[in-house]
């Protein structure tokens, strides 16, 4: 592989891992627990900003006319942990406003508006994170300490992202295949019934909202360290919609489906824009990207709302030791179940 190709592949892979962490966090909230967090991107932004603020020197150091709070110049991995924590902490007030009592599409709308407000707020408050211009100059972790070429460093960073992604996979998978995961799905399917069976519905929703927020923050931190700059244009409200499209395309409440969606949707976007007519203003490919994403979402919600890899049906034999499969079987790709789920059900 030529260096250019290597750069390209490693770069895509890094973004794949970063996005997958965020997508799992969102599917945990949406697909498994039934929370409609249309402000999800704000949590990733919080993680990115926090990581930046913890890693950078104070603003005056760079003499670049930037203003922002913080600048603690802490070594890796502390800023990354701070980013994840920020995402989780943000879930407390936002959860109080949007998760406690709101349900369904009303919740979706309220979260969307909160997302718009967050963008407007950051743009207006120059002193917080440097407003519309955003913050930059973040140093890639250990880039000066490690004697690596840029390409070599890229592979090393990919290694870091891969390890963290696997850890997140382990955590999310443990939750999803446990009795607690069952409680979450019960809360998703019928809050009333879950409460009547003694489960604490609001506690579960709040907890997963925080956990999802932390995963978004972690993803944001990794993204910040990779792109080294972050501004409001990176986290407009359509970005949340992109994550939802990935989930709907790949498969709701299916971790492998989430991975498939994360892999496939960017490819579909690139291929899709090839076919759309180049209308009017030339060079604005990015705009057409969003048109394709909108069409993808509409298309899948019409033709295959459960996604490419639908939610797995858990057979009861897997709950007892006699029938519990070996690790090998569990990792094996399992085809969609024979009986289709009625499309009239809640997604």
């Amino acid at each position, binding site marked *: 592989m030529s260096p250019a190709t290597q750069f390209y592949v490693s770069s895509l892979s890094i973004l794949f891992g970063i996005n997958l962490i965020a997508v799992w966090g969102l599917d945990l909230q949406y697909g498994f627990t039934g929370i409609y967090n249309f402000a999800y991107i704000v949590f990733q932004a919080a993680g990115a900003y926090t990581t930046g603020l913890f890693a950078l020197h104070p603003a005056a150091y760079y003499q670049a006319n930037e203003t922002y709070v913080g600048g603690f110049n802490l070594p890796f991995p502390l800023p990354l942990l701070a980013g994840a924590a920020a995402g989780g902490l943000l879930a407390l007030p936002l959860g109080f406003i949007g998760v406690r009592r709101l349900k369904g599409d009303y919740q979706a709308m309220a979260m969307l*508006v909160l997302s718009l407000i967050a963008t407007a*707020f950051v743009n207006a408050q120059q002193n917080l994170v440097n407003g519309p211009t955003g913050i930059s100059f973040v140093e890639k972790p250990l880039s000066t300490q490690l004697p690596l070429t840029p390409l070599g460093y890229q592979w090393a960073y990919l290694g870091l992202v891969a390890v963290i992604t696997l850890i997140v996979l382990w955590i999310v998978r443990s939750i999803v295949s446990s009795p607690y995961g069952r409680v979450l799905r019960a809360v998703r399917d019928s809050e009333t019934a879950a409460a009547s069976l003694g489960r604490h519905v609001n506690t579960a929703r709040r907890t997963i909202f925080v956990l999802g927020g932390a995963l978004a923050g972690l993803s944001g931190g990794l993204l910040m360290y990779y792109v080294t700059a972050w501004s409001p244009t990176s986290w407009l409200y359509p970005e949340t919609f992109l994550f939802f499209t990935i989930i709907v395309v790949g498969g709701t409440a299916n971790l492998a489906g989430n991975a498939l969606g994360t892999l496939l949707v960017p490819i579909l976007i690139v291929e899709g824009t090839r076919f759309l007519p180049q209308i009017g203003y030339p060079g604005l490919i990015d705009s057409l990207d969003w048109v394709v994403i909108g069409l993808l979402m509409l298309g899948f919600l019409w033709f295959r709302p459960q996604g490419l890899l639908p939610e797995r049906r858990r057979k009861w034999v897997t709950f007892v030791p006699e029938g519990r499969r070996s690790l090998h079987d569990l990792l094996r790709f399992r085809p969609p179940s024979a009986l289709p789920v009625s499309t009239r059900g809640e997604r």
Partner: protein
Amino acid sequence: MSLIPGIIAFGLYSACLYAIGAVGFTLQFGVTNVLNLAYGAILTSAMYVDYAIGRGTPSIWFGILIGAVWGALVSVVFGRVIVMPYVRRGASLVAMAMVTIGVALIVQYTLEAIQGPFVYSYQVAQQSTVRIAGVTMSEEQLIIIGAAVVLMIAVHALLQYTRLGLAMRATAVHPSLARSCGVSTERVRTTAWLVSGALCGISGVLLGISTGSFDSVTGASFFITVVVAAIIGGVGKPYGAMIGALILGLVSSAAAAVISPDYKDIAAWVILIVVLVIRPQGIFAEFSSGRELIG
């Protein structure tokens, strides 16, 4: 305080602008049961169309006409060609929300792809001003207030004094019961899209004219205000939306005058958060059977 007449005047003016948009939005939800998150994109498109047809001259009456026709047209198409098929297919309410956001993206970014990310400005015409109770207001602002009042009265008349309005109110409260009483929900819904679409388009055009310039994202921040006004009054309640718009207009105007002009938007945000925390269903909404919006 000598600020008060100014606050009230400007507050009323803002409220009028918000009211047209908010009543349209809330009417759509009330009758069709769909939270149309593409509303902001549609009103933005009306801005573009008016600008294109009028070639940048800000004529309010012409603008209202263009906005009403375009908005109504687009909304009816949107409602019948996109929304209803998904609903008939059994899409959940959240899936519908995602559909409307998808359409919002398609509309917003198609506009951007065609026209570019530029800001369009109306040619500033020489405004004659009027002085009322110690406050100077432009002719344009007064016309907008007048137009809003006329539209609100028209909506009120439609809802209270026509059979169609009665049918709309019945469908909003209890669709299946209305249907069994012989109300053609299909026709009522189409009418709702028409009327609310017209209001949507009008509010978009007036927004563009009143702020003087716009781009493909101008509709987004106005959408926040429209939604907040609707939420204050209770989504689905037109009179609630009017009151919500009034509250929003006066409070944001007061905040801008007393604290600082930057705080105009912040007032809306704070009100939204307070409402969502204390009384998420708004002033008037109770949310009828089967429609679970809050727990």
